[in-house]
């Protein structure tokens, strides 16, 4: 039976994995994703799933085993964070390029150095060109819902790409929130049976996987991968509509919060959006026309849709929770690109915040809206790029 329960974000991920009951889960512990795997291991030991676990000796091997298992012909899931995904880097590209529909919970955490275990997006943003679909979530419920939808998106025959389901480390992964846990059978029925494509275990039709691909074919294969990622946009929309029909919660490529008549907008990713919504509600009470555009799908990136959603907006503050040293933040770059062909371009500027887990409080978000109000009134963006809440700044 569907039920409301209080659970951590990591716990929600392992519950969802229990419901999905994947064939193989290779995994390696790393904070803050460890609880996902610990809880799931208990489900395996208690016979609540039929999954075979592979307790590998590194994350590089975790992703390598994911690729081998998926190519063999079954459903594969794993979880990691930060340095763990950095160690997978080479294999992330290979998973995507070999078109394996692997689903991974990524509990976002800062990359070293200095070593830090708390939330920022340097891990997933660094992997944005690896060829994975990236879905982000504000809270436990959204992360859980994204994980239910992920296999269906990944395994779509026009897509066949891996999906990374991201949430903020500790802030979401370790904090208890209430959420709707759906009925096991309903989740299983929604996802359906895994369909194979040229499985390695088909000895009657032996396939060669991972061939050497030189100048005469490589670029065609990369182009095919590009088209699959384009198709992923439609698949995310379709699966989200199917999800809404079954479970009642509606998701788009991004969420528009009080955006219709908004003049001043913040664009952000993940947990900080919860506080931003609270601040928007407060300011709306006072008649301030502010809104939020919250990214759900960062890869594929919905350029045209975002441009349309911002058509009447006058100023946009893009919050990046990761750095691209020597450049603007990765989200800012995409937003500016989205707006380049817009007939009425809003003012757009970039703020870096929250690296290594530093909190942004509601008062800080009020400051952002105060600042972009001044920018709009003076018609001048004083600082295109800056850090928020940093000493010596």
């Amino acid at each position, binding site marked *: 039976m569907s039920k409301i329960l209080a659970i951590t974000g990591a716990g929600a991920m392992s519950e969802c994995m229990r419901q999905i009951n994947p064939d193989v889960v290779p995994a390696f512990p790393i904070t803050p994703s460890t609880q996902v795997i610990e809880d799931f291991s208990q489900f395996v030991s208690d016979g609540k799933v039929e*999954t*075979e676990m592979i307790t590998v000796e*590194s994350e590089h091997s975790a992703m390598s085993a994911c690729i081998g298992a998926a190519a063999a012909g079954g459903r594969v899931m794993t979880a990691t964070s930060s340095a763990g995904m950095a160690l997978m880097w080479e294999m992330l590209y290979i998973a995507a390029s070999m078109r394996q529909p692997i689903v991974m919970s990524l509990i976002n955490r800062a990359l070293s150095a200095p070593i830090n275990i708390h939330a920022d997006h340097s891990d997933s943003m660094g992997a944005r060109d690896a060829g994975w679909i990236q879905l982000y979530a504000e809270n436990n419920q959204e992360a859980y819902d994204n994980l239910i939808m992920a296999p269906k998106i990944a395994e779509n025959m026009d897509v066949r790409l891996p999906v990374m389901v991201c949430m903020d480390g500790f802030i979401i992964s370790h904090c208890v929130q209430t959420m709707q846990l759906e009925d096991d059978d309903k989740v299983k029925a929604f996802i359906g049976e895994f369909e194979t494509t040229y499985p390695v*275990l088909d000895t009657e039709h*032996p396939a060669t996987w991972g061939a050497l691909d030189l100048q005469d074919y490589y670029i065609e294969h990369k182009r095919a991968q590009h088209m699959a990622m384009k198709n992923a946009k439609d698949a995310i929309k379709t699966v989200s509509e199917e999800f809404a029909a079954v479970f009642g919660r509606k998701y788009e490529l991004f969420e528009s919060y009080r955006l219709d008549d908004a003049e001043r907008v913040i664009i952000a990713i993940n947990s900080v959006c919860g506080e931003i919504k609270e601040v928007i509600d407060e300011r709306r009470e006072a008649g301030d026309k502010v809104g939020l555009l919250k990214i759900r799908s960062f890869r594929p990136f919905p350029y045209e849709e975002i441009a349309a959603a911002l058509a009447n907006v006058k100023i946009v503050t893009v919050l990046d929770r990761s750095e691209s040293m020597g450049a603007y933040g990765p989200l800012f770059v995409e937003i500016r690109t989205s707006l380049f062909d817009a007939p009425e371009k809003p003012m757009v500027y970039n703020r870096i915040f929250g690296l290594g887990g530093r909190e942004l409080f509601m008062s800080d978000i009020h400051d952002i809206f105060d600042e972009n109000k001044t920018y709009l009134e003076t018609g001048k963006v004083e600082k295109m790029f800056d850090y928020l809440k940093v000493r010596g700044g």
Partner: protein
Amino acid sequence: MPSLQEMAKKEGAFAGGHRMCAGCPVPIFTKMLTRVTDGYEIVAGNATCCLEVASSIFPYSAWKIPWIHTAFENVGASMSGVETMYRALKKRGKITKPYKFIAIGGDGGTYDIGLQSLSGAMERGHDLVYICYDNGAYMNTGVQRSSATPMGAATTTTPAGEQSYGRQGNRKDLTHIMVAHNIGYVAQASIHDPVDLSEKLKKAIELDGPAFINLLTPCIPGWKIAPDMAVEVARLGVESKYWPLYEVIDGEYKINYTPKKEVPVTEWMFLQGRFKHLSKPEYSNVLDAIQKEVERNWNWLARQAASVELLSAEVN
């Protein structure tokens, strides 16, 4: 065990027309993979290496069995995934036939960059045979030294020069490291002896659990030998005791071949261009050190094997 003639009549795993170098002995063992046993579906995985590159140039493939390559350092892990999915699907009744899994890597991909994933795969107990074809350097990238390169060999990263006699120090003994994993079957074999090799392959494949075979495999360009010399050079590697043929079954050592006469290691070395510089008189101490190491290793092995014989005699 079927005879070599009978085995040759069976369907091989590996087709001709691949792009290995003329005279490369690697296909000797790849062709055997489906010929040494009956009753199993055979699936192979490859680390990035000469064999991987030369057997799978898209859109062609020399592999007649399912085969997967993902990267250089991880065939132990990627084949752990394939083998585990087999068990998962078998448990769910989606597969009924018995399968066996082979992982193949060169010495660079096994002794060095792939050692961790190999160790993990063996320790976890996957039903997997790992074959390392040891040609003593990174041959695919153009003969750079690996931890399997023998002392004194000139490679492109340990060239002989005014101040260097080539690779310094002793090579790593990976076979011993694999014995320390307490797995059911570990062996050293050589491509010059197809009877011994096919028997070892059969034992390794039929074993329920992880097995490891380290296979001496001369490299034509890397060892600087003529294309018709690979088998002869491998034979002398064994006759000189540089590469003892032995197996370790459940931790018990057995030497499979004891040379009939003493052959100095220099007879093996000077068939190869990579040791040519060591013929200079000033390197006699290096040659002595190499000979001494070969004898030390053989004597150590002989003691292990003798203690096993002694124990079994006492039991009987």
